[in-house]
């Protein structure tokens, strides 16, 4: 992005390659509509292109891109009056695709429960959780996007995790394995986080 802001037009292809899959995944989950997600990805990247002259050297690119995408998504939702979805069942990972129909139904029900629980969370917790765990932003990136401290992001995501974990425990009566450390840092491998990427 730094090279692009400085006038290297060819660098935009690199910006696209680094950002577009992240944006597309995020917007697909938000819109549940591949066409809408594509449209919003295009608009987001065009907005970044228009604002390249004002790009601050050394600043994080991903929170900026996500903020633009989020703004465009909200704009779109308000005008089309579509219900904002936060969890896309169709996009949810399917860990039981090879199992029996009964198990698949069971898993679908469980996914729905978790989705409902996620939707019921306070927006601040839900958004922090989604940005960290589903969109793969680092704590620093999510904090910048949300305009809060890194610790606040960790706390919100932790609370969301605990709430979801409670659902699983309520369903099965015992504490799930691997649930002891929801607070571990979740740095995003391969994420575009610096302007020189």
């Amino acid at each position, binding site marked *: 992005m730094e090279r692009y*802001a*400085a*006038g290297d037009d060819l660098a*935009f*292809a690199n910006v*696209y*390659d680094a950002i*577009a*899959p992240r944006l*597309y*995944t995020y917007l697909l989950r938000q819109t549940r509509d*591949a066409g809408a*997600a*594509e449209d919003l*990805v*295009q608009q987001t990247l*065009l*907005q970044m*292109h*228009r604002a*390249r*002259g*004002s790009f*601050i050297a050394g*600043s*994080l*690119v991903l929170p*900026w891109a996500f*903020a*633009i995408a*989020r*703004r*465009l998504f*909200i704009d779109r939702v*308000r*005008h089309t009056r579509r219900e904002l979805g936060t969890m896309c069942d169709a*996009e*949810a*990972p399917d*860990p039981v695709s090879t199992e029996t129909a009964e*198990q698949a139904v*069971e898993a679908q029900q*469980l*996914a729905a429960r*978790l989705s409902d629980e996620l939707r019921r969370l306070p927006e601040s917790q839900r958004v922090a959780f989604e940005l960290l*765990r589903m*969109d793969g932003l680092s704590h620093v990136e999510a904090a*910048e*996007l*949300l*305009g809060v401290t890194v610790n606040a992001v960790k706390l919100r995501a932790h609370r969301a995790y605990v709430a979801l*974990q409670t659902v*699983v425990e309520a*369903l*099965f009566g015992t504490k*799930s394995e*691997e*649930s002891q450390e929801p607070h571990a840092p979740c740095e*995003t491998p391969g*994420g575009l986080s610096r302007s020189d990427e």
Partner: protein
Amino acid sequence: MNEPPARSRANALLHTMTGHSEPSPPLSCPPADLRRRVLAAVEGEPSRTRRQQQVRNAALTLFGGVVPLVLFFWKGGLRQDPRPDVLVLETAGGAACAAFVAGVLAFSRGRSMLGRRRASLLVLTVAAPVALLLLKIGPSAQFPGMMASWAERRGFRCLWLGVLLAPAPLLAVLLSRRGTSPAHPTAAGAAMGAAVGACVWVLVDLWCPVAYIPHLFIGHVLPVVLTTVVGAFFGTRILDLPGLRRGNARESRG
């Protein structure tokens, strides 16, 4: 492991959702033709490079600085009498320092493309007029008679001067930051308005010797409040992303 299958799947699902079972969240690949479309759209729409943007901002800064100064001197410039030199230095100097700090905080975005946090901007918006008022009243109270009532100076001339001086710099700073605040354009615009109001306060303070408190509220504080409100109003329209459909410009930061 004798874990019940349903529970095992629940754990798997939760951990997949939370990213604990994978090194990174799964990414959906955008269609191949999207890349071509985006690159074609970008190619067909020229945008300013950083150098071009800097030149434009410099021109806007010059415009925003020169126009109020010209108007200030056209309206008479410094009017010291009956204030002692030291009082003018203290009040205008204090206000200039406050305006400088407000300007640095409001006009720049720090090291983030999303600008400063909304809470910081709101604190700045509220603190600027309060600080300016205290910096005017404090030194003036040290000099006998400086805060006396002036029956013929209710503050409307100062208000008019403030209203006259503020539009050019406010327009300049808003245009120099056009489309750069997708997260909280209204708060950013309000903070810019407050900072411009603080700069205008310095000139009004040089022009007006009155420190009578009701006069200060009408003639000195009110212009800052007005520029803040106007900054918030136009911030929503100018600082937000271009091309959004109007009437729904609510701030999107969570």
